[in-house]
């Protein structure tokens, strides 16, 4: 294969971007590393790695409670990261951004702190067939605790969600619409803005799993008018265990705390306690300081590229990949129109089990994810035990897709399929 070919959409200078990611310089099984698993976790640019190192070398201290210079620096950096994340997602006020380990923790926070307080027997929680287990299981747990019931929103045969069908399921019993902003399996992007308006008209709140949406698209929570949006920092060039939850301020104020402990309180008595205002009400104990500060650098990096450019680069690459996969006879699941989907591309190739496929790809240096992608409900709907998924980000090129295709063809030969 030629060393240089045409690269991404031309909206991003991908060769320059790749040079910012040290891990992409390494090889895997003696081959060029082709990382196509960013929906799982993204790689980290040098700037993010340096930020974490510098934090520990120069500023490390616990937040808020100390009066020395180091602690003031650490606190300013941490709160600066909050302001940055708020601005990145269009949140009007940094107080609406709660830091935590990401989407799983955020949905558990909402299900417990909002759900246990406000859900009553017979109330309905709607979630879709697209959802990741982290947007299903916390709701099942809170339903069990409160007597609320869960209802499943079916997907259409093409892997999309029909907003009208969802609207027909919204009744005065509906209290929560929990929905993915972008599917981690099919790439499907539901009409969040429209669904937020419909949920509100029915008297429900909308909780958006933003794990895949936020890293790959410009997002404006004020324009979308959502109540909650989760953010997984490690999927957007940030460190693992970074990210958090956007919540509408009135809701965050009305909710119960989630974890109790140090720093989330105002006053503690033997028989009761009073709590801080959001967001600190939801941040008990020593926080993931270095990680959130690292996330701020990741946001700087993404803003430097421009989220519109990130989106159009991935749209172009996804279109290229879908076409290339179809050309070798792979079945691609989910919407085919790149305008309607993100860059997680799940497929089935020649009846070779995804684990076998991924094993052969690994030998070629190509990292993909086989399995159910924490979406067993969706796998059953698709009628497959598992899929193979390739997913793209700012450092991926057409060359990477070509390497995937070549490795798939090799697997086909190997298994004689």
């Amino acid at each position, binding site marked *: 294969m030629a060393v240089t070919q045409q690269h991404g959409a031309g909206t991003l200078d991908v060769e320059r971007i790749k040079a910012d990611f040290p891990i992409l310089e390494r090889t895997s099984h003696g081959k060029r590393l082709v990382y196509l698993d960013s929906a799982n976790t993204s790689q980290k640019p040098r700037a993010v790695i340096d930020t974490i190192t510098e934090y520990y070398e120069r500023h490390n201290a616990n937040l808020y409670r100390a009066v020395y210079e180091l602690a003031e620096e650490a606190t300013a950096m941490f709160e600066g990261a909050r302001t940055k994340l708020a601005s990145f997602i269009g949140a009007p006020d940094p107080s609406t951004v709660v830091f935590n380990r990401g989407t799983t923790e955020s949905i558990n926070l909402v299900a417990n702190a909002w759900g246990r307080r406000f859900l009553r027997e017979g109330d309905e929680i709607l979630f879709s067939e697209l959802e990741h287990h982290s947007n299903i299981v916390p709701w099942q747990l809170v339903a069990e605790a409160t007597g609320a019931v869960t209802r499943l929103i079916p997907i259409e045969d093409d892997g999309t969600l029909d907003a009208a069908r969802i609207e027909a399921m919204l009744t005065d019993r509906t209290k929560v619409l929990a929905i993915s902003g972008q599917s981690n399996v099919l790439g499907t992007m539901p009409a969040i803005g429209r669904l937020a308006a419909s949920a509100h008209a029915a008297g429900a709140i909308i909780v958006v799993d933003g794990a895949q949406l936020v890293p790959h698209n410009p997002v404006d929570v004020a324009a979308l008018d959502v109540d909650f949006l989760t953010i997984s920092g490690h999927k957007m060039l940030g460190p693992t265990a970074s990210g958090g939850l956007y919540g509408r301020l009135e809701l965050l104020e009305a909710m119960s705390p989630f974890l109790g402990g140090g720093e989330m309180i105002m006053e503690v008595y033997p028989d009761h306690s009073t709590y801080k205002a959001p967001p600190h009400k939801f941040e008990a104990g020593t926080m993931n300081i270095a990680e959130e500060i690292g996330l701020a650098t990741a946001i700087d990096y993404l803003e430097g590229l421009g989220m519109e450019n990130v989106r159009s680069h991935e749209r172009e690459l996804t279109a290229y990949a879908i076409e290339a996969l179809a050309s070798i006879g792979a079945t691609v699941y989910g919407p085919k129109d790149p305008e309607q989907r993100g860059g997680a591309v799940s497929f089935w190739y020649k009846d070779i*089990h*995804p*684990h*076998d496929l991924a*094993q*052969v790809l690994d*030998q070629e240096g190509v990292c993909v994810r*086989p*399995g*159910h992608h924490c979406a*067993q409900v969706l*796998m059953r709907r698709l009628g*497959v*035990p*598992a899929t193979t998924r390739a997913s793209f980000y700012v450092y991926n090129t057409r060359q990477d897709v070509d390497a995937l295709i070549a490795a798939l063809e090799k697997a086909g030969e*190997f*298994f*004689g399929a």
Partner: protein
Amino acid sequence: MALDELYKEVILDHYKNPRNKREIPDAALRCSKNNPLCGDEITVFVNEDDGTISDVAFVGQGCSISQSSASMMTEAAAGKTREEVEQRIGAFRGMMAGEVEADEDAFGELVALKGVVKYPVRVKCAVLAWDVLQEALAGEGEAGGSAPH
């Protein structure tokens, strides 16, 4: 490690032409299990005759490692006494844990699966059918009937 060290000819042969891949409708012992990690599922059927495994078969779906392991397992178990089979299950687990030296005299074709030991994620695939067989022998499944869907 080269691919053909993991995917030996024997494995690919059993994967493409699985032995005893069928239901035994009137099986005395039957057990099903799945591997939630990858969605693989296997049902094992066993009939015994006077302390000997007179017939053993499996159905299910999964990767080449899980399917070929199940196929080889049925051949390794058929005609053996219950004690011999249980001993063999223990030995196979030992091989997959890297604790037992896998020599061809003791393991026969199963020695082909020893390459899996280097891939911890795939060990579960190889062991799945053997877990199901052990549970079937212990009477933990249901008797008779067909496989669940």
